């Protein structure tokens, strides 16, 4: 053989070997299911392609007819087919949708969930829920996967169901439950009205103010609020129209006549906005009863204080005038006047300590005698039960005791060591008789003129027909009989 012949034989041999390898490779690929189409040549039509599974088109037609997003993958996660509903769902153009684009569109979490589903797919369907995007525009997909066979191919059928509407409905229902719970838990009365002013929601406090369940009635019918401070310009549910037009109202006082005891309430209201539009109004009614009661009490106290200050000033002027008319020197006036003002102040102090309620006779006696007597216990003797008297009588009694004490210190029983005062109390029909008797003092003679002390004693307590006092200069000691009106004594 020539070298050319040898070379040709080798080349032919190599070509045959290559064709044999190719033929074996084709057979292997067919056996292992790696091909699904064959090229067949015939004389009439030339090359023709035959697919090994005829069902491909039919399964695609079926997928296209589905409303759900649907896709077929092979076992390796390669996208074989995706229907139009899926391209709409992930918002990708039909031509642009391939495997990588689909996985990208599902986001990192969605792509991982889908890969896990495909790799774990078995004949029984398993599903997972994924969220695309965030916020209000978030889309919720339920992805379900199951194993399937397509001719010679094993693959995975995956459906994508848009469950956004269901999830949003659940969220809305949850939000509504929360809102109702908030409404029910609110201490203040909260009322929700629709645009026609009809009450749609109300909590227990609101029902209490309405005196009945207000739901279904108009706000005006249910609550009949009386806006007395609004000069008649606003009545009933008029304010709801104002509020619904976008002008909130805050802190208008009204009376809720339907509630038990006609409560004062503070009304505030604003439009109930859902999205961009108003769907009604929210009204809150704050119970002002306690605050109003406190304000009334305060006014009462201020009136009382005013009254007392005026009375006290009148008394001080009277004391000043009477003292001036009976004292002959400036020094005498100063001493007598300041003594009497101090006596008045002392009774005031004791009364203030008791919140101007009532006071025991012994307390007044102790207070008024304290500046003059060191050992009160041995100089003052009380006979009979002590009584509690009201401020009006207490101030008068305090002044009387002051005058009696100063007189006793100057001329009577308290001027000497052994003298003492006996005070007895006896109940009579319309008054309590308090008797002041000086014992063990020097001999008493009638004063030559009637001083202020005498006037104070006899005139005080005459504000009541049942009250009064009389002074007797008995030789063994001054006796003063004071009548405390029964209406000024606290009955046990």
């Amino acid at each position, binding site marked *: 053989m020539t070298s050319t012949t040898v070379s040709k034989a080798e080349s032919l041999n190599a070509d045959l070997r290559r064709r044999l390898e190719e033929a074996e490779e084709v057979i292997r690929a067919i056996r292992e299911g790696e091909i699904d*189409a064959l*090229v067949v040549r015939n004389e009439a039509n030339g090359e023709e392609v035959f697919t090994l599974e005829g069902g491909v088109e039919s399964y695609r037609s079926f997928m296209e007819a589905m409303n759900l997003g649907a896709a077929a993958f092979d076992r390796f996660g390669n996208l074989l087919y995706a229907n139009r509903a899926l391209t709409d769902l992930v918002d990708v153009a039909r031509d642009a949708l391939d495997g990588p684009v689909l996985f990208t569109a599902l986001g990192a979490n969605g792509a991982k969930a889908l890969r896990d589903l495909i790799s774990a797919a078995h004949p029984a369907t398993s599903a997972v829920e994924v969220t695309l995007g965030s916020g209000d525009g978030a889309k919720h997909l339920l992805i379900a996967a199951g194993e399937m066979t397509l001719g010679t191919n094993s693959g995975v059928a995956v459906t994508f169901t848009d469950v956004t509407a269901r999830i949003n409905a659940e969220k809305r229902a949850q939000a509504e439950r929360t809102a109702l719970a908030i409404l029910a838990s609110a201490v203040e009365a909260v009322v929700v009205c629709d645009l026609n002013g009809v009450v749609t929601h109300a909590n227990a406090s609101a029902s209490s103010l309405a005196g009945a369940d207000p739901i279904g009635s108009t706000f005006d019918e249910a609550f009949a609020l009386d806006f007395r401070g609004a000069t008649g310009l606003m009545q009933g549910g008029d304010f709801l129209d104002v509020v619904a037009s976008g002008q909130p109202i805050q802190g208008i006082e009204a009376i809720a006549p339907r509630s038990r005891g006609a409560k004062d309430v503070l009304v505030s209201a604003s439009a109930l906005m859902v999205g961009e539009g108003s769907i009604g109004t929210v009204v809150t009614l704050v119970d002002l009863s306690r605050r109003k009661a406190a304000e009334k009490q305060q006014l009462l106290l201020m009136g009382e204080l005013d009254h007392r200050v005026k009375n006290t000033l009148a008394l001080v002027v009277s004391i000043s005038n009477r003292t001036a008319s009976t004292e002959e020197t400036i020094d005498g006036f100063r001493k007598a006047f300041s003594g009497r003002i101090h006596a008045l102040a002392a009774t005031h102090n004791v009364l203030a300590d008791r919140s101007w309620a009532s006071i025991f006779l012994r307390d007044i006696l102790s207070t008024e005698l304290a500046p003059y007597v060191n050992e009160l216990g041995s100089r003052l003797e009380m006979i009979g039960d002590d009584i509690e008297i009201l401020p009006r009588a207490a101030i008068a009694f305090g002044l009387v005791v002051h005058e009696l004490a100063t007189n006793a210190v100057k001329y009577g029983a308290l001027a000497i060591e052994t003298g003492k005062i006996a005070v007895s109390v006896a109940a009579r029909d319309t008054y309590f008789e308090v008797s002041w008797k000086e014992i063990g003092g020097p001999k008493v003679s009638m004063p030559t003129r009637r001083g202020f002390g005498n006037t104070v004693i006899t005139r005080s307590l005459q504000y009541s027909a049942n009250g009064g006092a009389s002074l007797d200069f008995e030789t063994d000691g001054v006796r003063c009989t004071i009548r405390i009106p029964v209406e000024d004594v606290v009955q046990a």
Partner: protein
Amino acid sequence: MTMEDMEDQPTGTPKKLTLYVAGQTPKSLAALQNLERICAESLPGKYVIEVVDLRKSPQLAREHGIVAIPTLVRELPVPIRKIIGDLSNAEKVLVSLQVEGE
């Protein structure tokens, strides 16, 4: 017929790979996706992929004597190589495509 240029072309002109498919059959789609992945991950810039749809142009099968679909053909460098099947065995594909010294 489509031509897809590979991204990130390094030195040297990329060589052409021809993938013969039959429309959208599962194996055709799988082969294309597997090939794109292998090229992107292991052979960046070395090849461009030409996809020949024999459903549309069956006569093009004659040039490379294609019998089974899908089939991948590498013409250069010689000798011509054919890889038949869905290219799911990436290792085998790489061995066939990577010639020593390249």
